[in-house]
Every structure is written in structure tokens, then in C-alpha cells.
């Protein structure tokens, strides 16, 4: 299912409130189908789940300058599940 504007705007509003440095940045949106990662489960001696997963990623990026004028990519990634609920929010270090 394609992510619609309502969900995108909801995430953007949350990011603007919680992470103001990324306010007004338009995220790059990708979606991905994740197949069961059999090899990884097998290597870890875990039972393999059979279902496919569908995730969406909203990537907010900007380039900042440090005090000594070094450019650094700042990346904030929001991962959503099939129901457009946030799984996690991570930032570049």
C-alpha cells in the first residue's frame, strides 16, 4: 500500500516537534519489502519467520557546519511498519 500524504504530514509534524533541527525538511520516502532473512536466522539458531514484511522509510537530511567549518551530513531516519506506525527513529552520529 502506498503511503499517503496524511501519514507523511503526521510524521513531519512529529519530527518538527521532537527534532526541530529537521523542521521544514521534506523527507525522501522509500518503501521496501523484506523477505524472511533465513540465512541470518539460521546462523543465529533461531526459528525462521515465514512472513514478508513491508516497511517505509522517511529520510530527513541536511548538511551542517561544525564550529571549525567541517561539513557533516545529518541524517534522521524514521522507519514505519505496514500500518504506518513508527518502528524506530534513528540519527546519524
Amino acid at each position, binding site marked *: 500500500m502506498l503511503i499517503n500524504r496524511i501519514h507523511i504530514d503526521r510524521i513531519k509534524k512529529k519530527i518538527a516537534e521532537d527534532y526541530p533541527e529537521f523542521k521544514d525538511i521534506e523527507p525522501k520516502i*522509500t518503501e521496501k519489502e523484506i523477505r524472511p532473512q533465513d540465512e541470518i536466522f539460521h546462523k543465529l539458531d533461531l526459528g525462521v519467520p515465514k512472513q514478508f514484511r513491508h516497511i517505509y522509510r522517511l529520510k530527513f537530511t541536511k548538511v551542517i557546519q561544525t564550529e571549525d567549518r567541517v561539513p557533516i551530513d545529518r541524517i534522521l531516519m524514521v522507519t514505519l511498519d505496514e500500518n504506518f506506525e513508527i518502528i524506530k527513529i534513528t540519527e*546519524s*552520529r
Partner: protein
Amino acid sequence: MALQKQVGNIRPIEKSIDEYIRSRENYQILFYYYDMPSKHRIKPVKKKAEAIRDYVMQIERKMGDIDFLLLLGGDEVVPFFRLENPCDDADEQVLSDSPYASRDENYTIPERVCARIPDNRNADYMKKQLAKSKQLHKKSFGLTAQIWQRASEDIYRSIGELEELRSSPPVTSDKFKKVWLQKKDYLYFNVHGSKVSANWYGQQGGEYPVAMQPSNIENASGIVASESCYGAYIIDKAESDAISLKFLDQDEVIGFCGSTTIAYGPVAPPSSEADLLVRYFFEYVKQGFTLGESLKNAKLDFARKALRRNGFLDDDDQKTLLQFVLYGDPTLRLQKNVVRS
């Protein structure tokens, strides 16, 4: 020979390796030049990561499973793997030692310990790494970007008292006290880093001060873990422009665990990505495991945790597993109460 090209006369290093092997009575240690004929009739290979990995696999087939693999030299001697970057970010590839730690093509999950002693184009620098030890001091130090204070506290609790964890700002390199890094067991950093700068940076809002630079390090001690982007990036760097190499130049810094590329983590608990990996790493070191086992076990636990949480390893989980490397002797441990694996 690749190592000789980097450091010149290799006899002193060979002597140190002999001493190292003699001093590790509990290990059966074999030393090979991948680009020279060996007594076990393994054909020399070219200076390519894939070929060197095949060489390691040949040793395993002839001599039995390798539990610990120590690579001697930086990228010019034993090249990092250049892996496809699972994340959509500025890194074209992920510099990684993970394939050396894996017996199959799924490099995210290690099967053997793998660490590296960077050459820093200096034989004495390498010799020093092979003869390190440290006293226990029962004190730690941490430095976090102010915006990640809460996330960092969650990790720091396992290694020290929260009042030892400093944040930047207000800490900046010109206010940094060298004594903070001295007589410590654990040194933890959750700050910004850059491929092109020697410095690490703090953050408060839109302010990114220089939190720390190589010259802040003098007589430091402990095991260092850093989450900063490019914290373990050492290509064409020396101790004057890489904090990782400067730390390893200290007599009592026994290892450095960090990321070769852009790393990720949460702003606040619960820990994930780099935060979670470093947290597990410290927990294993604290339990008395060797540094090498601690990183290997941390990666396994990290993967299990991500799978339990979400049912899969996503792009940044995979990148985290591939990008974190260990520099230093993987057989060293911090605690005297030894955990035998």
C-alpha cells in the same frame, strides 16, 4: 611484502610476534604472511581483501577452525572489505572487517573473532600493540553530545557513575582536561565525527562545538568505544589526525572499538544501532571476556535483539554490524576474573 612496504624493517615486529606467541600459553597461535610462501604450503595471494579471506579459509581447512583472527596492518597491508552500503547515505561503500570474521557469505553474523592492529606506518607502533597490558583503576569516563545525553546515560550506567559522563557543550576541546582520560578502565564516546576532520564534535541545537581532538589525549588508559561517525576510519591517517590511532598510541589503551563509516543511533532510550552494540560490547568486557569475544558476542546479541524486536535486520542494523571494528590485541581483557570461552 605489503607489511614491509609500510613499516620498513619487519624484523623487530617478527621478534615481537614471537614473544607474543610465547606469552599466550593458552592459545595455539599461527602467524602467516599472506603474500609469502608458508610452511603449510598455502599459496601466497595478492593484496586483495577477497583473496586474503580465501587464504584464511585455506588455513582453516588445513589447520582447523580459527577462533581468533588478528590482522596485522592497516588498509595498505590487509585491505578492508568494501561492502555495498545497505543504507541510503553518503557512504558509497562500508569499510568492513566482518567478512574476515565470517565463514559464509552472510557477513553480518560473525563466526570468529576478528581484530586488527593498524600499522600507522611505524613498526614501533605495531610492536607496542602486541605488548600491552593495563592496571585496573575501577573508574570510567564518558563524553556525549548534549542532545544524546539520555541515550548515553542508558549505556554509561553499565560501566560507571553518571556524574562521570560529560556532555558537549559545555565540554569543548579547549576546556578538555587530559586527566579525564587517565587511570580509567572504560572510555565511552557518543559524539559526532567526520571523515575529513581529526576532531569529534558535540551538539546542542544547531551548535556543533569541537568536543575533543587528538591533542587532548595524553597518558590515557582503558578500553575505548566510540559511536562517532568515522570513529575508526584510518585510511591515510596518522595519530595526529585520527583520534582512534592516537588512543592506540597510549601505553595503557588496550583497544579501540568504533565505526569506519556513518553510524546511527537513537536520540533517546531504548538503545538501538551503535548505542546497543557498544552497550553489549562493554557488558561483555565487564563480564571478563576478551575484547575480541566481547565484540563478536555483542554483534550476535545485537542481531538477536533486532530480530526479536522487529523480525528482521533493517538497513541500519546491517550497516551497524558491518561497520564496527576492533583495533588492538583481541586476546586482552580488562577483568582479572577470566571467563573462559
